[in-house]
């Protein structure tokens, strides 16, 4: 059971972080060679699908992470490097807290992109709009795109940092 939970947890992180790296390293690069109208279509389609993968992966990470913590016993920890203790007085406990906070921030970022930023980019001007309204609408979409780009970068760096923090648990925690 512990192996299955650990595997689902690792698979969740792999899909989430690997997907984020791939989207940044590959999709952003491919976009540079495409006409802007098609960039918008590809972004809408890939972003729409990716957000569900990211949210699903984060959900799996959260549920399996919590289950693993609840199943963790002192005897499990005793044989590990650094003699960790699940307490805030120990590096292991503090690192777990940092990971939990990181998960909350990542979930917040992905949820805000899925339910707020991404729909904000999909706004289109209507025929009954005045030129000023069309300009304002375009500005809003431009702002939404630049916000989205900043959040995507923050999400990418934070998720990679969380993998490093998680890796430190095998040595008894980070700090």
């Amino acid at each position: 059971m512990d192996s299955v939970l650990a595997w689902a947890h690792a698979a969740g992180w792999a899909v989430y972080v690997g997907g984020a790296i791939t989207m940044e390293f590959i999709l952003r690069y491919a976009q540079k060679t495409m006409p802007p109208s098609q960039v918008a279509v590809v972004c809408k389609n890939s972003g729409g699908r990716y957000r569900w993968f990211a949210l699903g992966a984060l959900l799996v990470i959260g549920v399996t992470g919590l289950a693993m913590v609840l199943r963790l016993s002192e005897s499990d920890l005793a044989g590990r490097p650094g003699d960790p203790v699940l307490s805030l007085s120990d590096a292991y406990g503090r690192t777990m807290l940092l990971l939990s906070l990181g998960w909350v921030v990542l979930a917040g970022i992905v949820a805000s992109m899925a339910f707020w930023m991404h729909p904000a980019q999909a706004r289109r001007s209507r025929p009954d709009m005045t030129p000023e309204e069309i300009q304002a609408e375009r500005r809003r979409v431009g702002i939404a795109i630049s916000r989205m780009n900043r959040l995507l970068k923050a999400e990418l760096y934070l998720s990679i940092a969380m993998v490093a923090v998680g890796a430190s648990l095998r040595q008894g925690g980070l700090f």
Partner: protein
Amino acid sequence: MNVLDWDLVVFLEMGLRKWKDLSIGLNVLYSFIHDIAIAVYIGGAVAMEYVLNPAQRAIPPAQAQVMGQKTADRFLWLVWGSLGLILLTGTLRLERLQMLDWEWPFFSDAMTLSGSYGRTVLAMFIIWCILAINGLIITFVLRPRLAGKLSTRTSASGVAAAQGSKIQAATWVERLTRFDIVAALTAALLGVSLASGGML
């Protein structure tokens, strides 16, 4: 104050006193790189197969082909980088766990095939070899077929044959990618089981 002393001061300032021990830092570094490489391999394959490929179908075929080629070429760099790092850091981690040695007989007693740990590591290595072989097939057989261009002198039957060959190659790339995802997830399951002594 030399560089090492300065590093030490910075680490102490940050409250990371335990990191004075270089071996702990190396263990974490190898684990981190290993985990990231596996994540890039699995997550990248999932994103390519289930996010980027369907997104390509939303744009005109000619542009989709250009995008497909760009994304696939770049993804292959990620795949080979990941496979290389997985093997390298996996070997280094085993060496740090004193399961491997650089001198004969190379393997510790725990790594022999009579133990679950050794059998699990062997299974993971076999899966890595399968992933590398599939990577070679995609890189050197299927991708060149997909990227092949037709000249203006190509006959109608030649065009039809080339298109058939490209469709067949694309189908095989899709099959191999899906197989690779399942194989890599199986390797990950075997990998996490090593913490409790192995699975096989």
